[in-house]
């Protein structure tokens, strides 16, 4: 087979991290632990360079398609191992390999004391491979392979420290909750296939833009009439349910906070920057399909908004710095779905990118603190770190300012785009979106001030050994901080005389939507939201920095119902346990001991006993007495005679 250079590059991009994985898997024993991270980082970095070169080529040469081989085929059910790289996927690939490289580098410092550092890096490389498959796949089933593959790596990395059963439980939970979404995803794909007869994104998009089935040599009998709205609704809802699993939205978000059991770089890479955005990518990839179902779009919007507010409220009352960030991720992802539901695809994708920068930064910053404090994650036992961890403090602050959407940091631009889209739909949505944003301001500043300002609450040993991030950790922090600050430049709105570079680049995949809002309204909206952010910032600063308030212990919250609900995460886990997990376990017992053992097997054994019983009774007729036999014979003859007469 002949591949063009661009196609070869496209093949190498996922192949290199996979190669890195196999090197570790096969020759791990002979790699020096300190060296392992460099090897792993190297492959991802080369992938990044290749991704960048593709990214530059695409505007000139259009999208690239690479067909490796046919994976599965039966009639029209054809799944190729094939990639399509267009504007959307090329940016995602850059993001994954770029942020991936930084986090690999960071991990060299972060994990240097771990005995199993080689296993760690092999998993990270494997993750990058699967994530790339997910993004590059040209059809639903291959995307699903990547989709499950990243879930698998997430499982491996959450439970990386497998000696701890609590971590293992968190890993299992992540995998299982995702599997619920995966089943919905798969059923959605089957339904889609049943009606369109194809599995590739391109033909499906073609199908929905032209309304005509595009099925090369199909053997499946297809309905020729256009799809019923109910069918499209079902397809999109099933796919969206799949997306809620991977992207931690209501109702399947519960695994993400628990997933913080994994090492912090994992939380940054998988559970903030890349894997959890897969659901958003899925909808972006199939936006033509989702557009056809306004009801689904509304559901996506409502779910996103609800999740965003929910995540923000819960984050207000958490004490574990990683948990706060996790709920913050849930909340920000919710905002992205909110934007998707509004049809503001470009805004959603823009926020996906800026969020990847600042949330990865925040996680890595938090990791730097946790590393310095030897594993302490409770912000109530931190405080006053600003003076001692200078670098970490400044980069963390950059991340905080970006996420709270203060101009001119990156989050400001992306959130503003979302709010603008919300306003176009209805001022109410704008207001609710703003509310979710203000929750972010509060809990992030609370996190920042309680960690870095106020009085130190460290113990003596921690004080003594306090040290800032080493070079391997510092470089990624600084790079991500630069992107968090300046990421807004990617897509400066025309309001600021920008050229909307990102949207323009993306418009080959997702058409630009035209804004109907006058510049004057935009200025008012932006001004209002910025003022609100500033106001909340001042309040938070006053409470946590000036007054040095430290969050109180959990049990003192019992008096305040609302705060108790926030701190208890609205008890969603408990409800799921009571409503789903426990009944299923009870059902299992019931089915096994009552239905299976008692009834079904009872019937089987009963049949056996019945035949034994009948046999033993029948045996008595064979008693050896001639007179008895004669009597029986006479009786039989009489019986036959009677039957003859009667007939």
């Amino acid at each position, binding site marked *: 087979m002949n591949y063009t250079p661009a196609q070869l590059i496209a093949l190498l991009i996922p192949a290199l991290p996979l190669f890195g994985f196999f090197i570790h898997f096969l020759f791990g024993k002979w790699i020096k632990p300190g060296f392992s991270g460099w090897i792993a980082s190297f492959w991802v970095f080369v992938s990044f360079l290749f991704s960048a070169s593709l990214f530059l080529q695409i505007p000139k040469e259009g999208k690239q398609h690479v067909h490796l081989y046919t994976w599965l085929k039966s009639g029209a059910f054809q799944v190729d191992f094939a990639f399509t790289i267009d504007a959307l996927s090329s940016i995602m690939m850059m993001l994954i390999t770029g942020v991936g490289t930084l986090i690999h580098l960071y991990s060299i410092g972060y994990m240097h004391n771990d005995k199993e550092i080689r296993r760690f890096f092999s998993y990270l490389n494997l993750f990058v491979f699967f994530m790339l498959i997910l993004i590059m796949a040209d059809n639903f089933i291959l995307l699903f392979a990547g989709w499950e*593959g990243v879930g698998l790596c997430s499982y491996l990395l959450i439970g990386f420290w497998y000696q701890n059963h609590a971590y293992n439980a968190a890993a299992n939970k992540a995998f299982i909750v995702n599997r619920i979404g995966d089943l919905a995803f798969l059923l959605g794909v089957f339904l889609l296939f049943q009606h369109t007869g194809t599995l590739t994104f391109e033909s499906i998009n073609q199908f929905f833009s032209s309304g005509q089935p595009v099925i090369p040599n199909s053997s499946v009998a297809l309905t020729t009439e256009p799809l019923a709205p109910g069918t499209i609704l079902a397809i999109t809802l099933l796919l969206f349910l799949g997306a809620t699993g991977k992207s931690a939205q209501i109702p399947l978000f519960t695994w993400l906070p628990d997933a913080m059991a994994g090492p912090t770089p994992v939380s940054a890479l998988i559970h903030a920057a890349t894997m959890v955005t897969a659901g958003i990518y899925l909808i972006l990839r199939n936006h033509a399909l989702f557009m056809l179902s306004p009801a689904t779009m509304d559901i996506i919007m409502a779910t996103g908004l609800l999740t965003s507010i929910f995540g923000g409220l819960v984050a207000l009352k958490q004490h574990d710095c990683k948990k706060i960030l996790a709920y913050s991720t849930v909340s920000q992802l919710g905002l992205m779905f909110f934007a998707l539901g509004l049809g503001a695809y470009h805004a959603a994708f823009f926020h996906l990118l800026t969020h990847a920068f600042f949330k990865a930064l925040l996680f890595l910053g938090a990791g730097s603190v946790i590393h310095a404090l030897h594993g302490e994650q409770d912000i109530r036992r931190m405080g006053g770190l600003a003076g001692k961890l200078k670098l970490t403090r400044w980069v963390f602050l950059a991340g905080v300012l970006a996420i709270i959407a203060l101009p001119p940091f990156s989050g400001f631009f992306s959130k503003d785009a979302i709010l603008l889209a919300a306003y176009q739909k209805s001022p109410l949505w704008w207001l609710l979106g703003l509310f979710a944003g203000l929750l972010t301001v509060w809990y992030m500043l609370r996190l920042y001030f309680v960690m870095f300002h106020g009085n130190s609450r460290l113990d003596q040993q921690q004080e003594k050994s306090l040290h800032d991030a080493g070079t391997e950790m510092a470089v990624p922090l600084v790079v991500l901080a630069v992107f968090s600050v300046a990421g807004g430049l990617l897509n400066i709105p025309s309001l600021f005389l920008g050229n909307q570079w990102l949207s323009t680049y993306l418009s080959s995949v997702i058409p630009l939507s035209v804004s109907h809002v006058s510049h004057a309204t935009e200025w008012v909206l932006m001004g209002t939201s910025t003022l609100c952010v500033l106001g909340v910032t001042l309040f938070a600063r006053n409470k946590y920095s000036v007054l040095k308030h430290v969050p109180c212990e959990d049990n003192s919250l019992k008096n305040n119902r609302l705060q108790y609900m926030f701190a208890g995460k609205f008890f969603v886990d408990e409800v799921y346990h009571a409503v789903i997990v426990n009944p299923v*376990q009870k059902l299992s017992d019931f089915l096994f001991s009552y239905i299976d053992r008692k009834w079904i097997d009872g019937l089987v054994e009963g049949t056996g006993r019945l035949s034994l019983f009948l046999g033993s009774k029948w045996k008595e007729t064979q008693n050896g007495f001639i007179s008895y036999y004669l009597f029986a014979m006479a009786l039989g003859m009489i019986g036959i005679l009677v039957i003859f007469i009667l007939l």
Partner: protein
Amino acid sequence: MLSVLSILLPALSSLFISLGTRDWARRISLASVFLSMILVVLEGFLLKPTAEMQHVFQSAWMSSAGIMFYFGMDSITWVMLLLSNLAAFVSVLLTEVPKERNPKLVFALILAMQALMNGAFLSIDLFVYYVFWELSLIPAFFLLLLWGNGKIQKTTLKFFLYTLAGSLFMLAAIIWLGISGPTIGFGLEKMMGLTLPHETQVAVFVAFMVAYAVKIPIFPFHTWQAETYSSAPIPLTILLAGVMLKMALYSMVRWVIPIVPDAMLSVGPVFLWLAVFGIVYASVIALKQTEIKKLFAWSSMAHVGLIAAGILTASPDGLKGAVLQMLAHTINALAFLMGVHLLSKWKKAGGLADFGGVRNMDPFFGGLFLLFVFSFISVPFTAGFPGEVMLLSSLFHWNEWSSFLAGLAMILGAVYMLKAYQLLMLGPANPEFTQYGAFQNPMSLSDKLLMLALATLILFLGLFPQRLLEWIDNPIQNILNTN
């Protein structure tokens, strides 16, 4: 002619072992299963992916009754032969019998079982098929009785009588089929040419399906399974789960669909829904199982139920997925049971909670076992995935809800398998193992190589299933087009 060699080789080896000395029993069996594997590969090379039967051997037996020794294979049969001999290979490799427990008999029985099961796959005379089908129970019966543990007499009797009773209906139907039609005879060609009235088809279908429902097993004919699997020694469990139940699935493809296609469509759905219900039922029950082998039995019922359901859709996707998944399930079962076998070397116990902390001791074993578990729960790029996705897709085409119900096993399977893996392998280091010092050399080189080979097979089948699918395409079209 080649096909009959696959029966004769293990059969003669079995005879040879029982005549030979104890010390040579294992070596001869190893040589025999190894040669059988080579023979399968050779047969595969010489096989053309066409619809007709190849490597045919035909010789009269009871000509007055139209019964003949009639063997042959197409590519579907070949897949069965592959999994059968693969399972026999692993089974023999894992068999270590102390001298006082009569190794000669054990090995002779294993090889006899292999020969008889190969015979059942290869027969294309329905009567001879039945003879092999029934005879293969006998070595299983003795292996279980002489070599099992637990309440062995009762379990053995139940297993034997239950599966035998199921088959008697099939025998009646076979005889009826043999004497109906223009000539008396049992050959595949005649059977495929029969056009039976619908009522007759239904009767024949039900008679066959009762036999298969017990063997597969399909709910509610499954109660013999969990006890049998947990009492049986691992090499026998491998043969039962890896091969014997596939005999039933294969027979549905080979005999039931071509002979009674109309009944398949009219009454088949009853069994299909039973199978689908059984998938959920078995998966839910598996959640609370505490013994490894019982967990395996229930999960096996769930997996095999999906294959049965796919066959019962009588669609090309369903059949292809089924053949693929039969091979995958055998490989998965071999891999999983191999892991269980190695665990039993660490500690003589069967409960999930008896282990833990194994991965610390042996990361190699722990890592590969994880791959096996992932293949079991059909993660993409492992053997378990392609077949499962095709089966679910074919079910979806048949009825959306059946696919949804069967798909629940994807979730429930993840729940119980990950829990099992966690309990068996993860957690803090287990002081028991360090005390005994057994972990220092728990796996022999052959164990390691075998595990690696199985891991390779799992990845290979997961990544490149297409060759196999293409290869079985013609015979499957042929089977579906007989009516």
